[in-house]
């Protein structure tokens, strides 16, 4: 039982980590905490659902079109909604993303309805037997795709000019600007990339947790927990934070009580903020006063 709990916890946890990665990506380069990240991912997931079940597109094509859609939405929101607020108080932009959070759920409900839908999964969910331990094939696929995505992201941030420029802006915005990096372009790029990661995590999550307009409300909280564990600064830390949360949550659900499982993420937030606000990997970001 324990290996299954670990693997299924890792599969869900890595998705929390991916959602959190989008949040941290935007936060690091633009200093905006995007509360609407989950809702945006939910909208993209519904878009993928329409492509798959109403238009009967093949899976890879639907995923690619959804990523394009997510990129456009991300760009649109950065360009027309948050960019005018560059230079305002952090709280103001947080409230703007809350406004998005409030609106997107209802808009999605108008388009796709209230009822939970079954999202088709990439492969049929068959149990796979590895040395006497049974794993779900869906969980293994999630782990595989997530690892692939992280390798791609690592290469992007390590070697591409754009990726290096994004890291430079996250480190020191003024310095990066003086080096001739266009801040506006980096902001757009962060939103585009974050929203694409969000869409992908939505597509991977939906077959496990059903597709409905409220699907991301709890997930985004868990993503924040993952981000807090990762210290809000370290990208690998965020993924590790997500995996830790997913595994711990599974154990709490299995050995303590399933009701406590729901309260668990919040307790972790309080605990981490009290004992180790820098998270597991991040540097301490105290109030800049």
């Amino acid at each position, binding site marked *: 039982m324990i290996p299954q709990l670990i693997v299924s916890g890792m599969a869900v946890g890595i998705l929390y980590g991916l959602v959190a990665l989008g949040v941290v990506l935007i936060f690091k380069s633009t200093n905006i905490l995007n*509360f609407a990240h989950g809702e945006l991912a939910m909208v993209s997931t519904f878009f993928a659902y329409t492509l798959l079940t109403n238009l009967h597109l093949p899976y890879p094509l639907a995923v690619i079109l959804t990523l394009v859609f997510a990129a456009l939405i991300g760009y649109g929101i950065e360009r027309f909604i948050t960019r005018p607020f560059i230079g305002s108080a952090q709280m103001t932009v947080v409230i703007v993303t809350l*406004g998005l959070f*409030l609106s997107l759920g209802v808009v999605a409900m108008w388009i796709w309805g209230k009822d939970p839908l079954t999202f088709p999964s990439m492969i049929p969910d068959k149990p796979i037997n590895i040395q006497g331990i049974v794993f779900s094939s869906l969980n293994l696929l999630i782990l595989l795709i997530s690892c692939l995505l992280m390798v791609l992201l690592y290469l992007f941030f390590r070697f591409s000019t754009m990726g290096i420029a994004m890291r430079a802006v996250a480190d020191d915005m003024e310095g990066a600007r003086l080096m001739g990096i266009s801040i506006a372009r980096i902001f757009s790029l962060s939103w585009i990339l974050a929203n694409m990661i969000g869409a992908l995590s939505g597509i991977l999550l939906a077959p496990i947790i059903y597709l409905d307009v409220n699907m991301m409300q709890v997930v985004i909280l868990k993503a*924040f927990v993952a981000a807090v564990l990762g210290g809000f600064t370290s990208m690998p830390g965020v993924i590790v934070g997500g995996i830790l949360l997913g595994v711990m949550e599974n154990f709490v659900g299995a050995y303590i009580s399933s009701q406590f499982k*729901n309260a668990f*993420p919040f307790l972790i937030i309080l605990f981490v903020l009290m004992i180790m606000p820098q998270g597991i990997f991040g540097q301490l970001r105290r109030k800049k006063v």
Partner: protein
Amino acid sequence: MIQSLSSLRGWFSRRPVFGWSVLILFVALIPLFVGSYFRYVINLAIIFIIASYGMNILVGTNQVSIGNAAFFAIGAYASALLIQKLGFPFFGALLTAGGLAAVIGLMIGLPAIRLEDIYLGIATMGFVLICEQILISWSGLTNGANGLTVTKASLGGWALNTDLKFFYFLFPVAISCMVIGRNISKTKTGRAFAALRMSPIAAQAMGINVARYKAIAFVLSAFFTGLSGSLFAHYVGFIDPPTFSIFLSISFVSMVVIGGMGTIAGSILGALFVTILPEILVMLGAKEAQRVVYGISMILILRFLPQGIQGLFGRWSGK
């Protein structure tokens, strides 16, 4: 005409107490002349003005909470249960409920407030989501998802069982909250809040203990929200967990943003907007549109009218 109006305005603005007294007297008479439906909307609006004011104190120190619906719920459930299970008198339960919300606020807020501002947002978001879960799971106490029927308010044997009676209890309570808030703003604490709003860096440099005053603002905010929640429970007579969702929290934020941040008039206007709008939308048959309207108004107002609706009046009078 316009000239005489503006000179009248000038006369009033030099005598704010007189102006406010006339306004209060005027509002106090309104319920006598309207039907029971309007009395209901007015009472609800006043209840939300208190909650909106609670949020405004917090926003006035450059912080935001997404968890105030949880304090609203704590106020509502605590005072309902104190009366039902322990036989508290209504007024005692009201104040205890506010106090309990404040204490829990302190426990949630303290770990987050020492850190960057975003952490309070995250911690309070977690809190409101968990609070709804707890209200459902702890059904022995809260009657779970079925909701709780709450006894109507009464003062020393005098039952506040009609909309009109409740109004004449609620209205002075709301005014007391505003007066307390206004008096706080004239004290050292209030000036520290104002300094935090304008520039936390300068405030720190002037020797203001930033974390401490942010915590005080958060606790005050929780107190007023809890008070408002208790009034809500005893007025409406029925509470259930979905009422206190994260969306209620965000509507508290939208009240403050739409009405105008940092002022009492802004809290009042924002709460009126957010209470009356759904009633209009229900009449138009578009109930679900309200979240979209709040969401979009919040973004547009922050962009084009940072002072909120209240700023619009200021602009017209040439301030």
